[in-house]
């Protein structure tokens, strides 16, 4: 008889004394989940810096970050669906939420946040939607695509055509209010992802009240970094386009774009540095505290942190993912190229942090006398190894860009902007 494969067996190597049922049950998709929600929360906080705290220089970045945050939003639950053994039953979380569970609130928190971001985008883009709809309405013999654009824009105005000065002022006030409510909700959305891990008392590495705060800080870091990176990519593309067809729609020259770009980037990088300091300090505090108090689990944790996972934690996460980009952003004369490398390293660092928490937390046995190694499936040989392997993760990672491209059709991120 062919032995039936157990979930987790395909990628778990067990060493020394482990319980028979122990496997790495939470894999790459559970690394992706906090990574993606972190990006959502971070992008939103970045957009709020302009709307709430009135940091004027961040205007372009704010609108960009808001739309990008919305594009990332549906992707946050995607890794969870990939991970669930009975994904078709995901609706049960909404039908019978069991509120003693940290996961049960996911639907509520997520829906609230999604609605809030949608409202905010609507208020930010209402003027644009009305203008587009009205200009297309008056146009005779519309093409097919213009008809579609007219229909979508007209529908999205929801009949609110008033774009008088007072109405726009009211819109701006609403945006500010929504953004202010949004910051705690964004932090909650992600802090709560941290709580899912931090509250597992059976897991010696996860259980700490610092976990939600560490998650929020690293979330903002990753969100800001991704916004910077994507912003640069989009700006570079626009520069290329502006070069090719000189009299473009908004009459911007490549030089205009260049100066606007570096200004935004320099300012944003300062916020990135600030949040990086918070994130690293908290993570180090956690590590030092564990070593100092040295409770029962410390022996096995030490062997994981300083032994088996040393390269992952200290070299890939702290050195390459934190220290190196930190120095790159701190040095004077920041260039676009250096920023691109820096943000990529920061994103990598945050991803490694999630990895080291999720996978690292399962790399030692509940017996405290054995280890488990995770072998990430690369080439999928069945649905399970696709979903919980490299290609599953790449699917999740690519989706927000497709959504962003679609959203950008309706909510153009760069409208009527000029250089600063």
């Amino acid at each position, binding site marked *: 008889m062919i032995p039936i494969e157990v979930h987790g067996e395909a990628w778990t190597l067990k060493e020394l004394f482990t319980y028979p049922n122990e496997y790495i049950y939470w894999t790459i998709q559970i690394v992706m989940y906090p990574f993606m929600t972190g990006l959502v929360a971070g992008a939103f906080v970045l957009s709020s810096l302009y709307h709430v705290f009135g940091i004027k220089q961040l205007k372009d970045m704010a609108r960009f970050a808001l739309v990008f945050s919305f594009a990332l939003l549906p992707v946050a639950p995607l890794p969870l669906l990939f991970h669930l*053994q009975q994904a078709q039953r995901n609706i049960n979380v909404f039908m019978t939420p069991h509120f003693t569970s940290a996961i049960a609130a996911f639907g509520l928190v997520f829906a609230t946040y999604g609605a809030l971001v949608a409202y905010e985008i609507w208020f930010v883009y209402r003027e644009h939607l009305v203008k587009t709809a009205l200009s297309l309405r008056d146009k005779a013999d519309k093409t097919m695509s213009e008809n579609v654009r007219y229909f979508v824009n007209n529908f999205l105005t929801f009949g609110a055509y008033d774009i008088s000065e007072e109405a726009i002022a009211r819109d701006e006030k609403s945006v500010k209010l929504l953004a202010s409510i949004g910051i705690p909700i964004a932090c909650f959305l992600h802090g709560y992802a941290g709580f899912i891990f931090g509250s597992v008392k059976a897991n010696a590495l996860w259980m700490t009240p610092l976990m939600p705060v560490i998650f929020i800080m690293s979330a903002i870091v990753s969100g800001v970094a991704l916004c910077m990176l994507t912003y640069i990519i989009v700006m570079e593309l626009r520069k290329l386009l502006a070069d090719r067809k000189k009299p473009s729609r908004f009459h911007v020259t490549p030089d205009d774009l260049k100066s606007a770009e570096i200004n935004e980037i320099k300012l944003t990088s300062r916020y990135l540095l600030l949040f990086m300091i918070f994130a690293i300090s908290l993570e180090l505090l956690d590590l030092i505290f564990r070593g100092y108090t040295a409770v029962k689990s410390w022996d096995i944790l030490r062997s994981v942190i300083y032994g088996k996972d040393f390269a992952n934690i200290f070299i890939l996460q702290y050195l390459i993912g934190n220290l190196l980009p930190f120095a790159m952003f701190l040095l004077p004369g920041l260039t676009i190229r250096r920023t691109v490398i820096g943000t990529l390293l920061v994103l990598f660092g945050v991803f490694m942090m999630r990895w080291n928490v999720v996978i690292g937390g399962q790399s030692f046995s*509940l017996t405290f006398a054995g280890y488990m190694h995770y072998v990430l499936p690369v080439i999928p040989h069945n649905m399970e190894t696709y979903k919980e392997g490299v290609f599953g993760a790449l699917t999740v990672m690519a989706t927000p860009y497709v959504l962003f491209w679609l959203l950008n059709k309706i909510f153009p991120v760069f409208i009527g902007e000029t250089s600063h």
Partner: protein
Amino acid sequence: MITRRDLIKVSIAGAAVPLASAKIISAADTLFPERFEKQNIRWVFIVDTKKCVGCGMCVKACKDENEVPYDANITRTWVERYVLTKDGQVFADSPKGARDGFTGKKIDRGEKGFHDIKDEEIQKAFFVPKLCNQCESPPCVQVCPVGATYKTEDGVVLVDRKWCIGCGYCIMACPYGVRFFHPVHRVAEKCNFCYHRITKGMKTACVEACPFDARMIGNIKDPDDPVTKIIQNERIAVLKEEYGTNPQVYYLGMSKEVR
């Protein structure tokens, strides 16, 4: 002659006696009479490690009874072997959950291969059977996002296979590692004290299968139950008390090396 006042007095006094003996029962109890009965039951388990020889009959019987695929590397109950050497080292293993018993002397260390310990180096060795602790405060029930795992009135934690979404949070939350994904049903799975048997007056499959009476199941709410008497009179221990789960599998002959 009986006055109106007397009549009221007598009727109140007369009514008070039967009323005082009445017990308040909830609507749910009347709807589900078996639930009312279950309130007088709390299933508990005793493992006498000194009687266990590591034959694995319990593991085999459990897999058969509960349709846990025989060759799959997961099990609802298992037996651990602990070997302590004279130089103070502790070795432990549970190959295939000890389904086939401990047939050799070599310690299974997974990817590290087998470790041979010479007889003269051994200080002491013993076996410890494990199963779900049916905790009084079960963390697995706490963390289930959909309420698919729940504690019954008589103290056993069950899983609803039709409602579980397979997120694995309960597996993560259990400090004893008793939970796993059922390879066929693809939902969370665990020992349930053979609930289908014990509620019909039978013993669990593992208790029936153990040739040495190392396993016992009983009702701690029944003062005459032999299991209750052992728990009351003997020196007993539970596993991983520090997690605050209040486990209900009691161990006789426990040792500090047991994980």
